[in-house]
């Protein structure tokens, strides 16, 4: 049986791992290659590395991190942050990444999804969707939460699938860093409406939160950063809880 995936996420800034709350107040969380190797050894099913500076100056630092991580670990990993061109994707895949995630650039240029899918295959193209709870439902935000769109998260996810996305990385900005649980209504709504895997992100605080997002919201994978980086909860403890709840795990 296909297992539900647990994905630690490393936000990378200037070659270091950092973690904030609702995308702000960043704290240092260590060396990305050491962290990635440790997670790989401790049962992570996949990793995600996000370049959160994504300025031209720091781009080459991030590619170096990707290359070093690829040499060190034997599990798949996705990279993202500021990706807007085929050339960038080529460079990151050549450095050893398995998938790339696009976010703001796909919102301003949805054709990018199809272009990347044609060039590299759907399995390689993850669309990251950041959404915020509003009085009008879950609305897509861009540029690390600093800009709001008029898109409903579910509609945008369906459009991404039609254009060739192979996976949706769905983050609740409202829940990010709060450790109050995943946004089950958001994840459930998107997971029921697309035929591609959905990775839930934002709000993980306890092992039970993972059980809930798999059992109640039908996520295919769950991503977390802070609770793993700062040692509050280990991957093994999360997986033990999942097994007790009858969720297939590796």
């Amino acid at each position, binding site marked *: *049986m*296909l297992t539900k995936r647990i994905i630690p996420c490393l936000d990378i800034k200037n070659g270091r791992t950092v973690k904030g709350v609702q995308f702000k107040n960043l704290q240092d969380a260590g060396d990305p290659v050491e962290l990635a190797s440790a997670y790989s050894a401790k049962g992570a099913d996949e990793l995600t590395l996000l370049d959160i500076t994504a300025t031209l100056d720091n781009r080459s630092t991030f590619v170096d991190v990707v290359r070093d991580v690829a*040499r060190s670990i*034997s599990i*798949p990993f996705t990279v993202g942050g500021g990706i807007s061109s085929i050339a960038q994707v080529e460079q990151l895949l050549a450095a050893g990444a398995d998938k790339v995630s696009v976010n703001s650039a796909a919102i301003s240029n949805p054709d990018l999804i199809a272009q990347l899918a044609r060039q590299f295959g*759907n*399995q390689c193209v993850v669309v990251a969707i950041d959404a915020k709870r509003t009085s009008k439902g879950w609305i897509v935000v861009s540029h690390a939460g600093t800009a709001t769109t008029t898109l409903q998260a579910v509609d945008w996810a369906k459009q991404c699938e039609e254009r060739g996305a192979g996976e949706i990385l769905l983050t609740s900005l409202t829940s990010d860093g709060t450790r109050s649980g995943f946004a089950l209504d958001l994840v459930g709504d998107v997971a029921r409406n697309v*035929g591609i895997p959905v990775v839930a992100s934002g709000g993980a605080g306890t092992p039970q939160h993972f059980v809930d997002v798999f059992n109640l919201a039908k996520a*295919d*994978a769950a991503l977390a950063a802070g609770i793993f980086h700062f040692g509050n909860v280990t991957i093994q403890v999360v997986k033990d809880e999942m097994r007790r709840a009858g969720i297939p795990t590796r």
Partner: protein
Amino acid sequence: MTIGILSYGAGNTASVLNAIKRLGYNAIISSQVAELEKTDKLIFPGVGHAAQAMASIKSQQLDILLRSYSRPVLGICLGMQLLGRYSAEGSTTTLGIIPFDVKHFSVQLKVPHMGWNAVEHTSTGIFKQIPSSSHFYFVHSYYVPQSNASIAICNYQIPFTAAVAEGNYYGVQFHPEKSGDAGAQLLQNFLTL
């Protein structure tokens, strides 16, 4: 021992090379028949579309090399699928080395089949020292049905071929280079055949 990784513009050759280096070996990544002919082991990776991959392989006469190669060959993912006769992906005639036809998943579950799934095998050959039901990492939308060449089975609503072997040809649908310790053991087994 010289290990060749066949490069034809549709494979994640860097990942395979990284995995081989982690095992303490080295390999050459090449699309040159003359270079690859001299290798002792050939790895045939593949990510992408069957029709485009076959066109690229043929344009470099790598199809002839693959059919005539007499030492162990390991096809990975699309590389395994191309060892068959035909693929429904782009209605493509493939290498015809092992008699199977590749089909598209028509399951109610999500496609691509992406993630870690349990593989049933007999812990022999390339699966030596790997417990049956170990998990391997898969990413694919097309599959090889069960046949006489199947040496390992996986289940995604329907049972399908996780690995094949016939003569000196081996193929795995999953990515051993991305499958943690079990995948590393499988590559080690292949390299020491």
